[in-house]
């Protein structure tokens, strides 16, 4: 406590920026009304980009202020708020790594909207910046209710992003996304209120040490899992995801896959394991079964997709299956692998959605059949696409490999059959990703519209290149992440062992 409130600044910087954009816009509304020109559009996007870049700088500052060797939460800020609820922020390695992912992806998303968002840009960047505040808030909250507020409030901007700037069936997708997520979250809210009443505090550190009776734990665990399973998403409550992904604008898909899904995994690691260890152990076989079904089944479903975004969306569900597998292995390898997989998937799937967005902006279709032979016209694009295809398959040397192998090793130690099932999924992932790649990139150009398609422009380069660099960097030097998350992994597991 004391010192510079770096976490608060980092969390609320985007919100303040959004208010600023809103005020400036309101002040200039009269003068620039006629020319909703590309100039004012770009000015707004640039301003938002600068704000989110500043947020990234703040999160990097938090990274340097953070000492990974210290156990427990750091940079804690706490103020009394409401009864047992306090405004308490703090980070450990797990949350810091996800915060960095968020602050890293948001500027990229705003840049990626440079050419693709034409209408209502002011509202768009405001929604995005507000969403960023809520996403960061989820990862840095150390209070149940504060966490819940950020967790649930994020639905509102995302609903608007999908609903206003989305594709043809955007309204259906936005409603489905919202209502699915909400019903899970509200069940979690009941459990939270119960926990606050039982423990007399909403503070994570108190609740981690509070031993709930095993019978109660089961109910609380189920209520929390109702929320996280939808968010992650796990089979069979994943059906909102393909719809939302397909309809969302490119940047929305990137954030959805890159960050919002990770809240589910984060929640499991932050609540399910440390606070309800008995229930977690009880449900371990069920979670393994669901994870394996998710990996195998959704991989097969992905294979049959004709829409590029839908394919990647299903592949996300499969990759999140690895996260579930790793987390519920209850060993260091598995949990480390799960965290790594979340970060790596954030980069890779984000990049894949950007890759799809590149051709979508040119052709305005996501049908795989409309493409083919892109390598002839877009060699650089094809190379990037190749890299991320391989990373998604889990090729050694990319970050995708590290996450998958660790979660499988961890899963193997806990239940051989689960790892065997997951391994099957790795094979399928090669099947669908390579099929996608072959059908869009290789071959002769069959669609005449593709004849004069241009390769990636400078903005797209700036968006995708850093993701490519990090994918390879974390693939060859995974310790960069492990150093950060080691102590929080150990902490989760020791809390779990201590509570049981």
């Amino acid at each position, binding site marked *: 406590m004391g010192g510079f409130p770096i976490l608060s600044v980092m969390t609320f910087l985007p919100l303040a920026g959004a208010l600023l954009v809103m005020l400036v816009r309101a002040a200039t509304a009269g003068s620039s009304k006629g020319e909703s020109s590309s100039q004012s559009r770009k000015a707004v996007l640039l301003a938002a980009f600068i704000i989110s870049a500043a947020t990234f700088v703040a999160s990097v500052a938090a990274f340097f202020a953070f000492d990974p060797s210290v156990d427990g939460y750091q940079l804690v800020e706490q103020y009394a708020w409401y009864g047992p609820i306090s405004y308490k922020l703090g980070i450990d390695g797990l949350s810091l790594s996800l915060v960095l992912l968020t602050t890293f992806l948001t500027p990229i998303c705003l840049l990626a909207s440079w050419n693709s968002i034409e209408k*209502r840009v002011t509202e768009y960047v405001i929604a995005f910046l507000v969403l960023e505040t809520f996403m960061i808030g989820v990862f840095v909250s150390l209070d149940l209710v504060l966490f819940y507020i950020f967790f649930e*409030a994020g639905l509102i901007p995302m609903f608007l992003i999908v*609903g206003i700037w989305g594709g043809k069936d955007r*309204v259906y997708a*936005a409603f489905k996304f919202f*209502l699915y997520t909400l019903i899970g979250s509200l069940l979690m809210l009941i459990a939270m209120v119960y926990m606050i009443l039982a423990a007399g505090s909403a503070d994570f550190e108190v609740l981690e040490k509070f031993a709930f009776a095993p019978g109660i734990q089961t109910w609380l665990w189920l209520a929390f899992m109702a929320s996280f399973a939808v968010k992650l998403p796990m089979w069979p409550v994943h059906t909102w995801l393909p719809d939302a992904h397909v309809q969302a604008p490119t940047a929305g898909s990137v954030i959805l896959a890159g960050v919002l899904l990770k809240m589910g995994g984060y929640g499991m690691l932050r609540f399910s394991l440390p606070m309800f260890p008995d229930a977690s152990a009880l449900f371990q076989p069920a979670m393994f079964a669901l994870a394996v079904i998710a990996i195998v089944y959704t991989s097969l479903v992905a294979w049959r997709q004709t829409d590029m975004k839908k394919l990647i969306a299903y592949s996300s569900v499969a990759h999140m299956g690895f996260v579930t597998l790793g987390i519920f292995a209850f060993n260091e390898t598995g949990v480390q692998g799960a965290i790594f997989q979340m970060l790596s998937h954030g980069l890779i799937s984000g990049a894949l959605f950007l890759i799809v967005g590149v051709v979508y902006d040119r052709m305005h279709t996501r049908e795989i059949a409309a493409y083919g032979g892109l390598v002839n016209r877009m060699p650089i694009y094809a190379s990037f696409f190749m890299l991320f295809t391989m990373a998604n398959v889990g090729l050694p040397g990319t970050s995708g490999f590290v996450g998958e192998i660790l979660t499988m090793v961890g899963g193997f130690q806990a239940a051989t059959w689960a790892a065997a099932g997951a391994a099957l999924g790795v094979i399928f992932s090669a099947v669908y990703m390579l099929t996608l790649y072959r059908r869009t990139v290789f071959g002769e150009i069959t669609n005449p519209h593709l004849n004069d398609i241009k390769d990636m422009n400078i903005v797209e380069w700036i968006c995708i290149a850093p993701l490519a660099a990090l994918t390879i960097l974390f693939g060859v030097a995974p310790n960069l992440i492990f150093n950060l998350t080691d102590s929080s992994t150990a902490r989760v597991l020791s809390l779990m062992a201590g509570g049981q």
Partner: protein
Amino acid sequence: MLDVTSILMTVAPELWLALTGLVGVLLGAIFGDRFNSFSFKFGALALFGAAALAVLHFGGGEAFGGLVRTNTFVNFAKVITFVLAGISLVIAEGFLKRHETTRYEYALLIIFASLGMGVILSAADLMTLYMGIETLSLSSYVLAAFHRDSARSSEAGLKYFVLGALASGMLLYGASLVYGFTGTTSFAGIAEAGVTTGALFGMVLMIVGLAFKISAAPMHVWTPDVYEGAPTPVVAFFASAPKMASTVVFANILFTVFGSAMDQWQIIISIIAGLSMMIGSLGALLQTNIKRLLGYSSIANVGYALVAVAAGQEFGAAALLTFTTIYAVTSLGMFAAVLSMRRRGGMVEGIGELGGLARTKPVLAIALSVLIFSVAGLPPFGGFFGKFEVLRAGLQAELIPLAVLVVISSVISLGYYLKLIKIMWFDEPTEKFEAVDLSVMATVVLTAVVAGIVFMVFISELGTGGWATFAAAGLPR
């Protein structure tokens, strides 16, 4: 010796309202139509003054040999309801002017209705209670039919009157049974005498009568029709001030008069609460008229408030005040937004008319969206804490099925709240609304700021541990 000052202070708000109301009648008689325009400012000042008087004697006291007794619990509700009633009067003027019905009777009826609210909140005797309820109800019937040339408005008034009279009859019959079996009409006396089987019958009938007044299911049927037919500013009034006052009175009677029979009424209230939540949120799903939709939504919200009532005095009193305060403010704001839906000189009420509001009137759209998200109980807005308090009270009283129903109903209700958001933000703009009155716009924005943000940041001042807890502590144990 009689302490006259104390008595006068205890009934000061009601005395003031009765006085200003009568002065208003006189002014109306003397100046006729010249008083029409001024009457709105006059009425609003009278109501804000009454709120100030309630603040001055917040601790409460006893008057008229126990016929009237106030405490912090009811005074809290009084202050809020008087202020909301005053605001509802301010925003009404423009609307009535356009309909050429700016008549001073409107302001006077609001004053008398508020007098009725003050009396039921202060009541400590069945007689006082009934008197207050009738004052409130009769004024309300007339207000609902205020546009007497409009068939819709007259129908609303008549419907409200016939059903309301039936409910008053039930209440009166219940009260007489209670009196018959306990031998007293004083609240304290009944509580002391204990609730025998006979008095229990009386209690149930009273609950039925009061449930009608707060439009709880299954006595809710009048609500959508009256909300649809009555002039919009009248509905803005109905949905905020009397709603809060009656709900608090309902709780006050159950807690203080029938506190010993909590085991019995808890079941009834739980059923009423559950029904209200489900009927309200399912009913609203299919509505296309915004006033009907908000009418059903108010039924669902009464259901949430009743969860706090069912939790009992110990757990629910503060939660009830927190929830109803936030809800009443939000509700007033939402109806003020409906008031701004005006096109080609006439009101429009279809929800489709809000199409593209975010493009045509962004400030109004943002404020209304905040109000809608808040009433839906979504964080980070203030309404979330209202629901949070209700859930907490329900779980503390171990009413877990009710808590689950709150959740289910909230999800269903999101179906129509999101529909409104969708129409405002996703759809293409329809024709622009006409210019909005400054007072109406200010009310929408102000309530959005208060309900959405102030109640969130300063929830510790309002909710548990804050004013609501302080006020709830005034209830006799």
